[in-house]
């Protein structure tokens, strides 16, 4: 619409009424446009939209008509085919319907022929007349002898329900609050009773309506023509029943979109998979945090819901330690195996090369693998301590050098040093590398090449990018020679001596290789004109080597993708420094165990070199070496001690701490329902502001607070099978025992024989965990002897036996009041008071126990029990119940709300569906 601009106000105001389409962009002066004119513009646009709509509907209808005619054609064909089914199939059986049809036609013809013959029975062979009725003289029901349909007993009424094996929280869409409900009176025929509607005052929030295309069109065109003055917007808003500000914003969006569409036609960015890997773990875990229920350990928990508040325990639980696995490699890329290969490789390479081979083979070969390892480790340890001793000066040096232009060289080094960075950690890496690459050529080569590619950018002279393998080998052999030369130098003696002194476990071969290494490195450094090389201090150099290696690893580690890094960190948190487990469980398909291992070491090194305090000295070798073993053992022991101590304290404190509030609850349970537990997130001992304390519940194992929290429920320490009376604090508090909390209550996981739960030697089994373990009785659904449906027991049970759980939807009291009104109308309620927050409703979701009827003299009782932080309703036998007996329990309706049938204990017809409407909502109580 590029109509000419007409600025003068008067003319705009005066005379454009005839042709609103030509009326034009007015711009800032738009305020002066007459409303009538604006309406005209809008109207014309609207007309166009309407016309378009008509055309659209017509088109759609026509399309549908064509499609439908094909469909009906098919139906017609099918119905024609059915005509022949019988004929081709079994024509000896006479289709009575067809026969009657024919009779009727014959009769009609006969009637027409004889004209006036009454429609009394003409003798059909089976006696059934096919009467023809004209007019309404005879009632049809008297005209033919009806065929009787034998009576089938109808079911007691019920609403279709879904079986639940555990309670579910109500989802929003199930709510009846705020919905108008209309009842119709069955007795009154058509009469409709609308109720609750006034009272509820449905506050339908003005939900954000999406702009539809036609609206967009009108907005755009109108504003383009008339400008976005207030008058225009107001009127437009009136017409579209929207706010002017909303319209303005929408217009801007539209314009922007238009521009954007024009601007970026080709730039369709494709979804990149790799972007997933750049995601932070936090982001990736977001959905997990939202969907995974940490209490039930399931996704999309129906009971506790999604997006729960995350509670982080104040006490970090111990990392995973499995020592027995130590010596078994986890796979072909296990750090352990790689290392082993290195070890043998070193010795074999050493043998021909160095003069010390005799010594080496003598003490090396037998224990090579392990020795090497400890070797390397001890070396490293030494190195590290050395580092810390030498203080940060070195580190600084190194870091400076890393800033310098020598970096590419190092990178270059790394390209062939790093196939398995672990090796470079050990000082015997030179020789190692050679043999190693020969032996497990393929996988190392692959690794090298990979790395090569990665670092190709750093055009180091020592690494030709092409045929890396062979050249590399060349270089290496060269360097090896140099090594030998160097080893003949004076460098050799001192370190070995010193080292020998320092570490008794040190093996000469390690020394040798170390010696060989140092000059080699020195040579390298010389080529790169490093000032450090001139230093006399071998340690420094050595350290430098170590550091540079580490740095390479760091660089390597930096190449890890974000997600890998964060996974790695998570792995450290979960499994401790166990590369096998981290790689297998978290980094599968991303990084091998060996790679994880190196990353681990280098991050460790980094830490120690940066911190320089050596506190992290828990064995940098880090997979569980001897040192660490003792370390963890120590830690574990102390934990154990702590626990013992706590247990002891607990023994005296449970009465004072957890029990007090519990007793209160028990004693005045009659008036006060249980309180809903929500875990608190306290990070230290719970104080006044603790949500649990505020709401009057105990802290549970799901709380964030430490185990020493005074508000925790401590569980019981009952001896065998004692958790069945009020002597047991759990039982007394209306709780099930929890194997995580109670001291002696536990369950076996089976002894291997199927079906039978394993038993401890003394046949002990806690009897207060039946809801948790779902150790319930078989309940049958059947026609009640009293009325409607009833629940029956399949097998005999003794007194106090747990029969099953009363499951249902967890709804709020407000919701329950609303539903209660509806249910009262139907005179069947499945509401059950659970606690101060929730009511159980088994109307649409529940289990068979919802059909157990009320009786003033019941054989069962219901009890609300706290099971692992949740209140649940258990049904128990009040007495011995025989197989096949119907189950009854006292609904214990609040006296003022009880329906008539539940009011009088004498009333024989004790049935919920039986009597007339009751006042208010009736809810079962435990």
């Amino acid at each position, binding site marked *: 619409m590029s109509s000419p601009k007409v600025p003068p106000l008067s003319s705009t105001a005066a005379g454009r009424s005839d042709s609103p389409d030509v009326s034009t962009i007015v711009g800032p002066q738009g305020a002066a446009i007459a409303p009538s004119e604006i309406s005209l513009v809008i109207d014309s646009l609207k007309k166009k939209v309407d016309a378009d709509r008509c055309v659209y509907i017509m088109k759609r*209808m026509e399309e549908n008509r064509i499609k439908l005619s094909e469909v009906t054609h098919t139906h017609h064909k099918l119905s024609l085919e059915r005509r022949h089914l019988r004929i081709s199939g079994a024509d000896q059986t006479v289709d009575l319907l067809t026969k009657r049809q024919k009779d009727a036609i014959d009769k009609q013809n006969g009637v027409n022929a004889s004209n006036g013959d009454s429609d009394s029975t003409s003798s059909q062979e089976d006696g059934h007349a096919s009467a023809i009725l004209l007019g309404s003289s005879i009632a049809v029901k008297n005209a033919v002898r009806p065929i009787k349909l034998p009576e*089938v007993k109808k079911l007691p009424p019920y609403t279709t329900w879904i079986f639940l094996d555990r309670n579910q929280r109500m989802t929003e869409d199930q709510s009846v609050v705020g919905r108008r409900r209309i009842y119709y009176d069955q007795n009154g025929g058509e009469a409709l009773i609308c109720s609750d509607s006034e009272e509820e005052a449905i506050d339908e929030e003005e939900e954000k309506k999406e702009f539809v295309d036609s609206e967009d069109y009108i907005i755009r065109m109108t504003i383009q023509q008339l400008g976005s003055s207030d008058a225009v917007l107001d009127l437009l808003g009136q017409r579209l029943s929207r706010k002017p500000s909303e319209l303005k914003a929408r217009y801007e969006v539209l314009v922007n979109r238009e521009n954007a569409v024009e601007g970026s036609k080709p730039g369709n960015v494709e979804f990149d998979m790799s972007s997933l890997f750049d995601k932070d773990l936090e982001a990736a875990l977001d959905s997990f945090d939202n969907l995974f229920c940490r209490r039930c350990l399931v996704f999309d928990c129906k009971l506790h819901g999604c997006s729960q508040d995350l509670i982080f325990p104040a006490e970090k639980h111990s990392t995973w330690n499995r020592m027995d696995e130590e010596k078994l490699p986890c796979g072909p890329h296990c750090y352990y195996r790689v290392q082993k290969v290195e070890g043998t490789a070193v010795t074999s390479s050493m043998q021909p090369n160095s003069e010390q081979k005799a010594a080496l083979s003598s003490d090396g070969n037998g224990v090579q693998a392990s020795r090497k390892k400890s070797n390397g480790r001890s070396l490293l340890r030494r190195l590290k301590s050395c580092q810390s001793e030498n203080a940060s000066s070195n580190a600084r040096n190194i870091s400076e050098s890393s800033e310098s232009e020598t970096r590419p060289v190092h990178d270059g080094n790394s390209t062939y040093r790093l196939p398995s960075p672990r090796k470079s950690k050990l000082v015997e890496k030179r020789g190692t590398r050679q043999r190693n690459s020969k032996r497990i050529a393929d996988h190392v080569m692959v690794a090298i090449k990979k790395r090569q590619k990665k670092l190709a950018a750093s055009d180091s002279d020592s690494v030709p990018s092409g045929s890396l393998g062979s050249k590399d080998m060349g270089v290496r052999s060269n360097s090896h020679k140099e090594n030998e030369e160097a080893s003949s130098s004076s460098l050799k003696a001192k370190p070995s001596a010193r080292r020998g002194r320092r570490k008794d476990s040190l093996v000469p071969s390690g020394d040798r290789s170390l010696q060989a290494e140092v000059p080699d490195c020195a040579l390298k450094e010389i080529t790169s004109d490093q000032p450090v090389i001139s230093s006399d201090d071998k340690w420094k150099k050595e350290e430098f080597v170590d550091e540079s290696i580490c740095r390479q690893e760091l660089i390597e580690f930096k190449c890890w993708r974000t997600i890998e890094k964060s996974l790695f960190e998570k792995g450290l948190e979960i499994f401790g420094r166990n590369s096998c487990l981290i790689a297998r469980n978290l980094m599968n398909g991303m990084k091998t165990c060996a790679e994880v291992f190196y990353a681990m070491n280098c991050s460790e090194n980094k830490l120690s070199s940066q911190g320089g305090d050596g506190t992290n000295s828990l064995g940098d070798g880090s997979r569980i070496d001897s040192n660490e073993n003792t370390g963890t053992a120590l830690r574990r022991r102390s934990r154990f001690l702590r626990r013992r101590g706590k247990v002891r304290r607990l023994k005296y404190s449970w009465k004072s701490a957890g029990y007090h509030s519990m007793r209160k609850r028990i004693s005045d349970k009659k008036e006060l329902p249980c309180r809903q537990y929500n875990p608190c997130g306290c990070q230290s001992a719970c104080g006044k502001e603790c949500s649990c304390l505020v709401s009057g519940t105990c802290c549970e194992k799901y709380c964030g607070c430490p185990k020493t929290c005074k508000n925790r429920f401590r569980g019981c320490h009952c001896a065998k099978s004692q958790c069945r009376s009020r002597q047991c604090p759990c039982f007394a508090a209306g709780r099930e025992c929890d194997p995580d909390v109670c001291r002696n209550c536990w369950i076996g996981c089976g002894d291997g024989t199927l079906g039978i739960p394993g038993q401890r030697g003394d046949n002990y089994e806690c009897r207060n965990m039946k809801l948790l373990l779902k150790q319930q009785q078989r309940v049958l659904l059947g026609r009640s002897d009293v009325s409607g449906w009833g629940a029956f027991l399949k097998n005999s049970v003794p007194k106090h036996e747990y029969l099953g759980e009363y499951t249902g939807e967890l709804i709020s009291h407000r919701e329950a009041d609303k539903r209660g009104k509806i249910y009262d109308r139907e005179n069947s309620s499945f509401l059950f008071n659970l606690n101060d927050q929730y009511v159980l409703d088994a109307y649409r979701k529940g289990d068979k126990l919802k059909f157990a009827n009320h009786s003033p003299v019941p054989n069962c009782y219901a009890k609300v029990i706290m099971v692992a932080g949740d209140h649940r309703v258990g049904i128990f036998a009040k007495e011995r119940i025989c197989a096949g007996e119907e189950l009854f329990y006292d609904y214990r309706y609040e006296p003022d709300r009880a329906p008539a049938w539940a009011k009088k204990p004498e009333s024989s017809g004790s049935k919920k569906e039986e009597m007339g409407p009751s006042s208010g909502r009736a809810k079962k109580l435990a």
Partner: protein
Amino acid sequence: MTKITLGCEPAVGSLAPSKKRDYRVTNRLQEGKRPIYAVVFNFIDSRYYNVFATVGGNRVTVYQCLEGGVIAVLQSYIDEDKDESFYTVSWACDADGTPLLVAGGINGIIRVIDAGNEKIHKSFVGHGDSVNEIRTQALRPSLVLSASKDESVRLWNVQTGICILIFAGAGGHRNEVLSVDFHPSDIYRIASCGMDNTVKIWSMKEFWTYVERSFTWEELPSQFPTKYVQFPVLIASIHTNYVDCIRWLGDFILSKVNDCLIQSVDNEFILWEPKMKEQSPGEGTVDILQKYPVPECDIWFIKLSCDFHYNTAAIGLYNSGNREGKIFVWELQTSPPSLIARLSHVQSKSPIRQTAMSFDGSTILSCCEDGTIWRWDTVATS
């Protein structure tokens, strides 16, 4: 009724009859004293296009339309339980073409009657409350759907007597289901509506193996692994009151909202296009295309009927004020919809419960609360 945004207005049918065709009463029968709730022609088998069935009270009756306005009664069945009151009936058929009648009512027991042999074929016990409507799948006429007061819709195999699927649960209806219908060509798709004011579209695609298994099931029908379908593919809350009739018209849906006593006596059938979002089942939008007004009608539980080709539809309506039962005949597939005829008769003083249109739409039957059946035939003029 949800607010209709600009540019999405439906085409509303005019109430001026086009008089393209006209009908007049050619017969009137008094079946009995009890109200007749359903009348339906047999479109399943071409032999029986002129055969129709009615239900009222505990009685199922089979008639035939003959020439000259004549109606012949062919069969009559009576439930021994006098308290039974059938609400609905549908024609179905066996694999070998045996015509079957499927009826249900207040007892919630579905009776499958073998009309070819004049005996009870099967009785389906399962619904927890009365059955409000039964419909047959035209492509597989052994499959029937039942809508019940127990808030569920169930799919049955009348041949083997199996309850295959139950459409209820988390996403199911929250009150009586009043009406249900099979999609004419998409065999997996059904729609249901009810007293919870919603229309739900369901897909059986994931459960189709069970449907196939039901045909070859050899064991007891009760041992069949009946499945719950808990989540519809679309929930449309386009009405603010009971939705008491739903029919597919190709891919579109015709549904009737009942606003009587709440807003006005002017109700309407609306034709709308469901737009499913395949990624997020349950959500979706509707586009209301056309409206067929049902003016001055203050009763509900009224069903519409179409001829075989869905060209015309007849709706019975009743106004308790002037006690007048009328029939509106709409041309369904034109845009905008046009009313063909408005049928009334001086003696038609009772609520019309249901109508039935014959194969070609030339005959309209209506059954009334007072137990009468009316036959209307086209007047062969202009």
